[in-house]
């Protein structure tokens, strides 16, 4: 996985091409932090997502909340990553309303989102 900044310097994209399971989450955290420190808007793109586990989903939730609290935005394109929502659903993460941190109800796990 890697992070690339756009030419504008305001946004960037994280490209993911490996399973987001426990063995990779520390690396993923570093990439997220790197993006957080450099830009206001990050796009997440999957080349393929063979697997994601509890720790991977949890890290996404954390990153999403962290960006939201700092008025930064995160756009996740789940093309090539259908497993993301399937696993989230199995774990009971998908919900009707957003978490309490987001008054805008822009929670990562909101069911009505296109994810």
């Amino acid at each position, binding site marked *: 996985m890697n992070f690339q900044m756009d030419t504008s310097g305001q946004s960037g994209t994280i490209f993911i091409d490996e399973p987001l399971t426990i063995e990779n989450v520390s690396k993923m955290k570093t990439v997220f932090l790197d993006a957080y420190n450099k830009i206001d808007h990050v796009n997440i793109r999957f080349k393929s997502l063979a697997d994601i586990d509890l720790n991977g989903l949890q890290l996404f939730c954390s990153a999403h909340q962290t960006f939201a609290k700092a008025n930064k935005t995160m756009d996740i394109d789940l093309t090539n990553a259908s497993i993301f929502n399937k696993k989230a659903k199995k774990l009971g*993460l998908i919900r009707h*309303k957003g978490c309490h941190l987001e008054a805008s109800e822009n929670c990562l796990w909101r069911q009505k989102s296109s994810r």
Partner: protein
Amino acid sequence: MDKQQQAYREEAYELLAELEITLLELEENPDDDDLIDQVFRAMHTIKGSSAMFGFDAIAAFTHEVETVLDLVRSGQLAVTKELVNLALKSRDQIKSMLDSPDVDLSKNENIIKQLKGLSSDIKIPSAEADEFIPEVVSDIEEDVSDIEISKNPLSEPDIDLDQMKSETPKITTETASTITYRIRFTPNPKLIIYGTNPFQLILDIQELGDTTIVAQTNKIPDLFEIAPDHCYIHWDIILTTDQGIEAIRDIFIFIEDNCDLNIETIDEDGEIEFGSDYKKLGQILIERKDISSDLLKQTLQKQRRLGEILVESHVADQGQVESALAEQNHIRTVREKRAQNTSTSSIRVDADKLDTLVDLVGELVTVQATLSQKAFSSEDTELIGIAEQVERLTADLRDNTMSIRMLPISTTFSTFKRLVRDLSNELGKEVSMSTEGGKTELDKKVIERLNDPMVHIIRNCIDHGIESPDVRENARKSRVGTISLVAVHSGANVLIKISDDGAGIDPQKVRTIALEKGIITPDTELSETETYNLLFAPGFSTAKTVSDISGRGVGMDVVKSSIEALRGTIEIESEIGVGTTITLKLPLTLAIIDGLLVEVGKEFYVLPLSAVEECVELTQADRNKSKGRNIAWVRDEIIPYIPLRSLFQIQSPPPSIEQVVIVEIDNALIGFVVDSIIGEHQTVIKSLGRVYRGAKEFSGATILADGSVALILDVHRLSFLAETLERKKVAN
């Protein structure tokens, strides 16, 4: 085969039928997790029950298919057309194995090989990942190995039939009593480091029954503080299961010291409180000790939606409210389902027993008619009263018994979806099928005998009717053709309309072919309907080449005879470039009909009342008016008639005034001349013996109140016979 094995087979056939429907739905909605779960569950149940009842080959094969389907369920393998094809092939193979134990099992290997080929690109979690799981949880790993998807799922399956036999098929759980538990599971944040994956525990709980799971995420720290290998989530789980509380505790047995686990019973079968209503949101939150009753009271005074108020007031967070609402919803659903099960509980009865019951009711109707006749002729008022009561009861019994054999037509409609799919693929066409009126009921026997004619009609629609996608596009139509099946009630009949939006039938082309084949002569004048009816002539075919699908010139005539054998009719309407509709008109039942009893000579006959339009007198003056031709004038309209006396070669002189029973056949009115009309008659249909096998003009017989027999007239065949005889007469 013992009764249990027979019951297994029946259930397996039902599951396979459902599986086919679900797979076809899944093909249209590949992201629908519920459908994926349904497919998996059906396969899983077949596997478990096959092993339990000694069908080991089926169990072994299903196990392999299930392994691949598990990859789909876990999101590692996408639902593609190819996968659905193979799943359908697997389903067909299981059915073949059920049909015949001697089926060629080499096909199994081929199907499995192809299924595994689909999943060959899946990245299996690396050895490092396996090593990450510490030895502490090796025992748990053994327990969950059956569903451990992160293990190598494509390795040679280690099929343990004994273990499979111990799996209780889910079909039995619906009748078992169920309990609903509220489980709050808060793992130690370091649980994963200690070697237990909470995800597996959640999956284990899901295996116990119906669950609603809400993960609480409010403890997840931000990016700066999160330890990625910790678990910050806790879960509220509502589980409805037929298992005891110990089964739940067993799942957590190895991590008891590394989690907070709270399990409470919140609903069970047999509770007096049986409605679908469940506790209010606030009550649930207080019970869970998420809020105090005082705070709830204060908050309630604000008179807004409680969940919103609680969240806005920071009394409860969104996750807690979401979880409580999920519990409320879960219990409502469980209770509604339970109430539904109680009110619609059913038993499985052998179809032969039902047939016997219908026969017995038929006999009873006959005996009751005899009793009524005797009672009225005796003028004994007490006996007449009893006879009237018996008559009422018999009528109720008859109606109830007949309704037992009625099945919704959707049972046969659903089987055609596969036919449309496979055939359109084979012909390179794109066709979708829609159905309407699937709840319309027909006698089980009518439905069974309707299958073959409908298959033929649908095949014709796809082969001859629907154009290829490019042709459709050029004609400014959607590339995808449509076939619609619609069933509606129409009096004592059901109309089934099979429509396509294809090229339609060209009447001129039909006429040309009929001329070429000598079915008509150049001077034959035909209406559009009559022209379409030529398609039902034996040997007619509009196809230029003979294909496997249709076009052999046999079929539509057989379709027509099959429908008429059901005492039904078939009609064609078509418009070039727009499409074709074939309408089947079928009686609701084949066992008892409302008939019109008539007398010819000294014999009695029954005409189906549903076909009768009206009855008129035929006097000598009427005969004189028609100058020897067999036509009657009814309100200035000419109605041709068939004198049954001469057709049946009855020598005795006719009465001075005869009766013409006018019936509708193929949209035309035709009269049948009889000596007298006795009246309406509840006709219990008996099949004819060998002596009458060749007499196709009679569709059956019935026993009258005095014990004599009346033949039931097949008006379609009678009119055809009369027409044929008339043509011969003219030719001579």
